[in-house]
């Protein structure tokens, strides 16, 4: 006899309330069967003659054929950029450069739904995120740097900033369009021209962006986009560029740095992370749980600054973990284009295998695994949001970047211990601190070795705020006035006292 029957005065509770699927329409996106490389303002067939297929990671469906650009293609793109730089872009009135950046920003806003759908289609991220985070932020970056373009003298007084020339930019697959915006906007504002290589698995939004450039009537060659895998990237690093800006893995970052040593080319690297998200026992608990979820399950954990190491004060450990586990049961994993999806598909088979390997290592090392009940689609690349408890600092899952929806939970007793454990990593990109005590936030921020520290929030971005790492998380800053500096030369001496 059920509880309901025993209490006739009670109204029965419903057994389920399934939200119907609410897919965003794909109609708005028109894909070519085969793309070219974008050089000198035109799509051209790659000299390499090679193509590969890009997929929808949620269904493994083929979307389009993409050029595997070779060294010759890279060289052509770089010389198109060089020509554009010398033929006017570097000498153009700064307000002219601002005009184009404003145009690009506005067009991105106007076409944001189209881009959001494409981003989710090619990358696997939930439409909720591409629509509410990636696109608004990408447009905001262009607006922000458009504002700086004619104010460089004020950004760096008495230092006479001048552009570098041609910037080679290599971006990752986790935020394809947003990373493009982070790279292209400051480079153009500073007066450089660009050759950009999107990630192998997510080239489509960058290729659609070429259409925006034409719509904005940006002079040909100012931005060139070449596609391909790591070989294309390596060719770009070796090419006649004045600067390389790279966002991606620490391993590749180190290789680039070795390659560029002694060449005089400038370099900025934004690499991996294994951020500590530190929860003190006086925090607003339910909101901290949201912050933890946002910290590690946002974009399937494919975030270099993800809060992948949760450091919890022992006195609050049990209620916090209970709340976290309950919250995980409400995460909706599935079709990236469904407006109610919270966690989408893993970006590629390769990444899925890496996550699976590290999770297996975590189990073997003795950590306790929790995964909420979850029905995953049969096709495509998927991983259930995962929490590891009883994790020791020495386990691989506490040391290595997993870059997936996997959280490792450790505990601490005192603020000193929290700092010590948080800093005990080769990385230093970001950290989170959750406490109601303002003085403790400042105390922690002074001691944490991380480029970005969030207090009572996580994964919050703004174009005005510089972003970048300590230690093996890289060097150089993107965003803010700081983000202009790596794209400028300074021949004026720093004046003392103005």
């Amino acid at each position: 006899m059920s509880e309901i029957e025993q209490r006739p005065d009670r109204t029965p509770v419903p057994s389920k309330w399934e939200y119907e699927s609410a897919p965003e329409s794909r109609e708005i996106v028109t894909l070519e069967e085969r793309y070219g490389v974008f050089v000198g303002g035109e799509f051209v067939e790659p000299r390499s003659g090679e193509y590969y297929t890009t997929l929808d990671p949620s269904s493994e469906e083929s979307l389009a054929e993409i050029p595997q650009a070779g060294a010759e293609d890279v060289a052509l793109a770089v010389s198109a950029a060089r020509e554009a730089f010398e033929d006017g872009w570097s000498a153009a009135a700064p307000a002219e450069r601002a005009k184009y950046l404003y145009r690009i920003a506005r067009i991105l806003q106007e076409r944001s739904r189209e881009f959001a759908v494409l981003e989710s289609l090619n990358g696997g991220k939930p439409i909720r995120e591409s629509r509410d985070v990636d696109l608004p932020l990408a447009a905001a970056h262009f607006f922000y740097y458009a504002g700086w373009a004619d104010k460089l003298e004020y950004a760096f007084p008495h230092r006479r900033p001048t552009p570098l020339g041609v910037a080679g930019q290599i971006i990752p697959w986790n935020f394809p369009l947003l990373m493009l915006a982070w790279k292209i906007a400051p480079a153009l504002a500073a007066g450089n021209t660009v050759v950009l290589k999107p990630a192998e698995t997510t080239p489509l939004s960058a290729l659609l962006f070429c259409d925006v450039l034409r719509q904005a009537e940006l002079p040909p060659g100012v931005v060139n986009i070449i596609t391909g895998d790591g070989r294309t990237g390596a060719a770009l690093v070796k090419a006649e560029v004045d600067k390389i800006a790279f966002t991606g893995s620490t391993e590749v970052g180190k290789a680039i740095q070795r390659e560029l040593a002694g060449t005089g080319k400038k370099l900025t690297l934004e690499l991996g992370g294994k951020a500590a998200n530190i929860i003190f026992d006086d925090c607003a608990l339910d909101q901290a749980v949201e912050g933890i979820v946002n910290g590690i399950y946002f974009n399937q954990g494919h975030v270099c600054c993800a809060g992948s190491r949760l450091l919890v004060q022992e006195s609050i450990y049990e209620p916090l973990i209970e709340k976290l586990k309950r919250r995980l049961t409400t995460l909706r994993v599935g079709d990236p284009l469904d407006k109610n999806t919270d966690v989408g598909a893993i970006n590629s088979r390769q990444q899925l295998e890496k996550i699976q390997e590290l999770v297996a290592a975590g189990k073997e090392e003795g950590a306790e695994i929790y995964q909420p009940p979850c029905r995953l689609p049969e096709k495509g690349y998927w991983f259930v949001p995962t929490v590891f408890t009883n994790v020791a600092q020495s386990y691989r899952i506490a040391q290595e970047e997993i870059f997936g929806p996997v959280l490792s939970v450790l505990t601490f007793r005192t603020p000193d211990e929290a700092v010590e454990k948080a800093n005990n990593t080769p990385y230093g990109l970001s950290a989170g601190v959750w406490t109601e005590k303002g003085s403790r936030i400042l105390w922690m921020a002074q001691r944490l070795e991380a480029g970005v520290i969030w207090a009572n929030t996580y994964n919050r971005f703004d174009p005005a705020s510089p972003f970048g790492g300590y230690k093996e998380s890289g060097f150089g800053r993107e965003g803010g006035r700081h983000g202009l500096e790596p794209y400028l030369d300074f021949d004026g001496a720093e004046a003392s006292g103005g």
Partner: protein
Amino acid sequence: MAQAPALPTGFELPLEPRLPRIGSVDQVAVEARAADLSRRSIKREAKLFALDLAVRMMDLTTLEGADTPGKVAALASKAIRPDPSDASIPSVAAVCVYPNLVQTARERVGDSGVKVASVATAFPSGQSPTDLKVAEARRVVELGADEVDMVIDRGAFLAGRYAKVYDEIVQVKEAIGETHLKVILEVGELGTYDNVRRASLLAIAAGADFIKTSTGKLSSSATLPVTLVMLEAIRDVFEETGRRVGMKPAGGIRNAKQAVQTLVLVHETLGLDWLTPDLFRFGASSLLNDVLMQIRKEKTGRYQSSDYFTID
């Protein structure tokens, strides 16, 4: 009559029954979470389910100085049969009226199953001596109310005299016996989410069957973040003690979309167990017709003129 435990001024919360730590609420984060949940896309069958539930959870309310037996009689008829042209539309949960109109409401709802709720305790301000408030609550039950919606003494709460607030709720609860007690916090006067959380836990500790956001007399009332803060307090109490406390957002919920968003909040915070009129109510006067209009639209695919929905 048992006395409430003697508590010094400025205490935090009684230890019995054991309650979750009071904790705090982060304003930015709770508003972000509520905004996130409000963007769930609820369509077709899922929407009809929510709208039907919203009707069954409704406390159809009139709380005006100008209320008359005629007005309340019309409201009661509407409560029993919200849409005469569609027999599948259920009755609402209750009608909510001033004490003087309890008898009329009682007669009119008869044995339809629709409950009669009465406000009490010097509604809406609560600024009267405790004995008068307790007497008023007892009287409305004698007049036939099934449910009492009392207000807390915000003056005492904001002055830090939590014991007085607590004590009054305990006394009202005792005076009305088994009658269902909803405690109105009037969140618009509490000023912070931290206060909303404290008042929620305090009211629950003192014996509230339901906690309710507002009197409906202020412009700031049942917003999504405030509702979320109260639902989280209810969840913490449930986790800690196993006790199920109900929730009633009231004031400011005027259309079906807001009602559906609120139900999503309940669903994703407390789960299916709270999706029943036993544990969740909407206090509203103008919400019902919009919900009826949306139900008809979902069923027929067309919007109908508001002339086809009765104004009561």
